[in-house]
Structures are given as C-alpha cells and as structure tokens.
C-alpha cells in the first residue's frame, strides 16, 4: 500500500497532491502577511483614534489581536480543520483552555482579593473573616 494518508505536522505545508485546487504555497504566506499587516495597522489606528468610544477600545483591540493570532495559526503555522490535523487542533484547544484558566483565573482572583482588602472600617481582615 503506497498511498497511505498520514497525519499532518504543525507548520508543515499541506501537500498539493491532495488538493488540486489549493493555491500556491508562497501565495498562502503572502495572503497571511497582507491580512496580518492590515490587522496590525487597524490595531494601531484603533488605539490612537478619537473617533471611537473610549470604553470599547480595549475590547476592540482584544478582538483584533485574537483575529491576528488566528491568521498566524492558519496561514503561517498551517493549522487547519482537516482530518489530518486533528491532533494538532486538539493540543491547541487544550493549550488555549489552560491559557484561559491561567489568565482569567488570575485576574478574577486578584481582583476579588483586592476588593475584599478595601474595607471602609478600620478593623483588620481577620476579624471580618471570623464573623
């Protein structure tokens, strides 16, 4: 059996034999570069413009950053949704779960502790906890 379908390594360029319609490999990188440059320029514009509501700038920047990370993953690291890339996607999904737990958990816990430390009365923390 010579025609065995193997898995797909992260960062490996998908073989052109499997998809005749696939664009050329250099074109994939070029599209990725152009989209990433557009997203980067938009991020810098969003951070400096006064046209947008200031409260939404942080969220907009986060969305643009996540979009650009996705572009990097697809066009530069060639993480696709194809069946030959399942292991890579699963590892990535687990990594993202841990990243989310670490970042969101840290910020939540420290913000909560910070709020508990700011008491109006002068009594120490331990007294308050015992009630």
């Amino acid at each position, binding site marked *: 059996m010579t*025609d065995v*379908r193997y898995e797909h*390594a*992260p*960062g490996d360029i998908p073989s052109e034999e499997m998809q005749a319609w696939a664009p050329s490999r250099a074109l994939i990188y070029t599209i990725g570069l152009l989209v990433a440059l557009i997203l980067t320029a938009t991020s810098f514009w969003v951070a400096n413009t006064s046209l947008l509501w*200031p409260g939404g700038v942080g969220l907009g920047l986060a969305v643009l950053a996540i979009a650009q990370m996705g572009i990097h993953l697809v066009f530069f*690291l060639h993480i696709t949704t194809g069946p*030959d890339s399942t292991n890579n996607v699963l590892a990535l999904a687990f990594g993202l779960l*841990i990243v989310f737990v670490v970042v969101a958990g840290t910020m939540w816990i420290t913000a909560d502790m910070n709020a508990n430390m700011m008491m109006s009365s002068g009594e120490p923390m331990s007294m308050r906890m015992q009630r």
Partner: protein
Amino acid sequence: MNIAAAIDSVPLEALPSASEAGPAPKRIVVAYGFWIFLLSDIIMFAALFASYAVLVHSTAGGPTGTQLFNQRTVAIETACLLVSSYTCGLMSLAINSRNRPGMYLGALITFALGAAFLTLEIREFADMIVRGATPQRSAFLSAFFTLVGCHGLHVTLGLIWLVVMMVQVAVMGFVASVQHRLLCFSLFWHALDIVWVGVFTVVYLMGVSP
C-alpha cells in the same frame, strides 16, 4: 438488502484513516512534539501576561506606560517581526524544494529583521533605564521587563538557533534530521510572532490608549 450487505458495499480501496495507517513518519512525530513544547511555552507566557495585567496599575508613584512607551518604535518592531515571520515561511518553502541559495537568502533576511527587532528593543530598554524606569522601580515595571524581556530572550535564542541551523545545512546538507530541526525552527519563529501580537496589544496599545 440486509445490514451485512450494506457493510460489504463500503468501498475497500478507501484510504486508511490516520489511526489505522501505522506509526506516523518521524517528521510528523518531531513536529507534533515541538508543537506541544510551544503550547507549554505559550502557557508560560500566559502566566506572565496575567501577572502583568494584575500589576499594570501598581506604578508606586513611578512612571506609567503612557509616559514611557513610544508607539513609533513599537510599530517598527512589529513590522520587523511580522515580515521576518513571512521570510521564514519563504525559507521553509525553499528548503522543501531543496533550493539552497533561496534558503540562505530567506535565512539572511529573517536574521537581519530579527536582529533589527532586538536592537530596537534593547535600545528601548536602555532608554527606559536611563530615565529611571528600572525593573526595581515598581511592580508594573518588574512585570513589564519580565514579560517583554522574556519574549526578547526567546528572539535571541531563535537568532542563535538560526545561525546554528545554517552551519548545519552548510556542513551536513539537507539530511532528514536537519530538515526536522529547520521545521521546528520555523514553528518556533512563527509562535514568537503570535506571542508578540499579544505583547504589543496588551502592553503597548492598551497601556497607551486612554
């Protein structure tokens, strides 16, 4: 038509799925292992990002990000790293087609852009330290230097790795083990760019915007 006949009618010449094809080639195993390392590295950066996000307002009366950061420098650094990621991709295409001059050219441009990024970052750090914004000044600056410095350290290691790989190609040629290492290098370099997207968004742009 019973169930057995329906099963028999499944075409036998269908390609075996990945789990039935036997052990994967070494190229895939190596790259997958390195992919797991990169994800663990990204989790380490997540911890540094989390500590930075917690400490960003703890300036202890010292300089804040708005006073320290220069967006023009950051934009040039970002462009350097993004284009070097692109040339690194073109370098791996040249490696796949055994194009030696193309590979050396891609590696040279990648190295030059990475070195330019590093020079700008070191100059920025030196400028901050001259202005009294040292890591021991405040918790915000400790977190800043840890996060951005750790990324800069990764870029430094990547540049050293790239030089070592070029020497290996020159000495050993395109043998399989060298190709696996080059694949791992390009993965590493692209992952560094992903981390930098987080750095310039969280540290520089969110820190400067009002």
